[in-house]
C-alpha cells in the first residue's frame, strides 16, 4: 500500500530501480533531503482534487507528420562520442 514514510531500506530499493549505486556516505547525505521532500509532497493532500482531470501535457493537439523518407544524420560524429569502439560497434563488458 502507498505510504508516506520512506526508510533507509526503501531508499536503497529506489536507488536500485533508478540504476544508481548509493554509498553509505551518500545515503547519509541524501536521506534527509529525500525524506524532507516526501514530507513536503504530503501537503498536496490538503487540496480537494475531486472532479479535476489530470493535466498530462500542454501540447495543444496531437500533431502527426507525413510518413516520408528523410536524410538520416551522419552517424560518424555520434560514434566518436562512444567510450569504446571496435570498428563501428560500441563495446560493452560481457553480458554473460
Amino acid at each position, binding site marked *: 500500500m502507498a505510504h508516506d514514510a520512506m526508510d533507509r531500506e526503501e531508499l536503497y530499493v529506489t536507488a536500485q530501480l533508478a*540504476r544508481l549505486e548509493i554509498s553509505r556516505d551518500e545515503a547519509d547525505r*541524501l536521506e534527509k*533531503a529525500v525524506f524532507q521532500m516526501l514530507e513536503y509532497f504530503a501537503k*498536496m493532500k490538503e487540496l480537494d482534487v475531486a472532479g479535476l482531470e489530470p493535466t*498530462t*501535457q500542454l501540447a495543444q493537439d496531437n*500533431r502527426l507528420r507525413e510518413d516520408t523518407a528523410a536524410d538520416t544524420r551522419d552517424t560518424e*560524429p*555520434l560514434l566518436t562520442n562512444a567510450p569504446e569502439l571496435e570498428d563501428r560497434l560500441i563495446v560493452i563488458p560481457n553480458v554473460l
Partner: protein
Amino acid sequence: MEKSDRWRGLFSHPDSLERWQAFARRTDQKVGAFLQFDPTVALADSDTAASGPLAGVPFGVKDLIAVKPFRLTCGSRLLKDFVTPYTATAVQRLQAQGAVAVGKTNLDEFGMGSSTENSALGRTSNPWDLERVAGGSSGGSAAAVAAGILPFALGSDTGGSVRQPAAFCGVYGLKPTYGAVSRYGLTAYASSLDVIGVAAKTVAWAREAFTAMRGIDPRDHSSAEYLPFRRSLSGPLRVGVLPLGKEGSAVPLDPAVERCWARTLKDLPKLGFTLKPVEIPSLEFVVSAYYVIACAEASANLARFDGIRYGARAPEAENPEELVRLSRSRGLGDEVKLRILLGTYVLRSGFQDQYYLRAQRIRTRIRQDFDRAFAEVDLVLLPVFPCPAFRRGDQGMDPFTQKLSDIFTCSANLAGLPAMSFPVGVEANLPVGLQFMAPAFAEELLFEACGTFEKHFPSPDSPLYDPEWKG
C-alpha cells in the same frame, strides 16, 4: 538604443571585436559565466552575409542546449567531454539571422538548481557581488549579460531557471509560452515544463531574440505554430495583483523585495497601468506539485545517461548492468541523484495515484485559477524570488528553502504560460526583479509592459558593466 548599437555588426569590425574579446575574457575570469568561450569556432555556422539587425551580434547559450561544434556538458561530470553532432533549432534560427553563438554558459547540472552551484564544471559569481550566486539554473547566461559581455543569452526555464537568475543579476528574463520555441537540441529535464528562454540587457533584445526563435519546428512535435494572442480590449493594461504577505507564507518576502514590490505597485498606475486584485488560491500547492512532476519526468528523461553510447564510463565494470550503475553514480551530482530518486519513488507502483496523478490534478486547478484571473486582467504581477541574490556556499540558502522559493516562478511552467522578469530596483547594491505573467502566446503584452517599465527604470548596470569595453 545607442548602447545596444555597438553590438550590431561586431564581427565585421576587427578593432571592436578585439576590444570586446579582451574585455570578455578579462571579465569572465572574475565572473565565470562561461564553460566554453570561443568566438571564432562558432562563426562558421552563422550566416555572416545576413543583413538583418542580428547580424554579427554575439550571444551565449546555456550549456544544456546543443551548439555544434561545442561540447554539450549540461554542467555534468558525466558529459564533460561530450561533443554535440548538431545545433539546436532555436540557436540555428538566430545564426540564420547572422547572430554568433560565442560560447556555452554555466548552469546547475541538467538545469537542476537555483544558484548554479550545482554545476560540476565551474563556479559562476554574480557580477553585482562576486561573493554571491548569479541564481540558476541559467546563472551563466544571466551573469554574462549583466557583466556586459553579451546583449542576450539563451537559457532554459523549467521552474524559473531563466527568470530567477535574470532577477538576481538585474537583467530581463523571458520564459516563453510552452511550445512557442522549439526544444530540438535542448537536453530534456522535465518535458511537460521545459522551455527555451532568453536573458537580455534590454526588452528590445529579448524581443528580437524571441521573435527570431519562435514558431513551429518539424523536429519538435511539442512546438506550436505561433499565433499571437490578441487582446479583446484596447486601453490601459490591467495588471492583476496578488495579496502578498497577508497570511503567514512558507517563504516570507525579504524586506528588500517587499520594498520593491510596494514601490512598483505605486509606480505602475503612474505609468498607465490599471491595478486589480486577483487571487490564485492554488498557489500554496504549486511547489509540491511542481517538484513531483519535475522529478518524475526527470527520472525518466535522465535514464538515457547510461555511459554506454557516450559520456564518462566506469572502466572497471564487469557487466553491462554494473557499467550503467557505476557510470551514473560517478557521473551525476547529488542534486541530480536526489531528483532522480524522488522521481523514481513517486512513480513506483502503488504510489502513482498519491503523488504523480494528484500533482497533475493540482496542475489542472492551477491552470483554472490563471484562466479565471486572465478573464479579468491582461497580466499578473508576481515577485520572482523571495530575496535578492544570496551568498555562495554554506552562508547562502539551503537547498530545501531554495526549492520552496520557486513558489512564484513555477506556476508559469505548470500552466504553460509566458512570463517575464524585469528589474525594478537596486537594494543594498543588489538588483531586485519582479515578473509579469500573461495568457498563452501573449509575449507581446509582456514586451509592451516590461518596455513601459523600462523607460521608467532600465536594467541597472552592474559594477563590471562597461559600455565601451575599455575596462
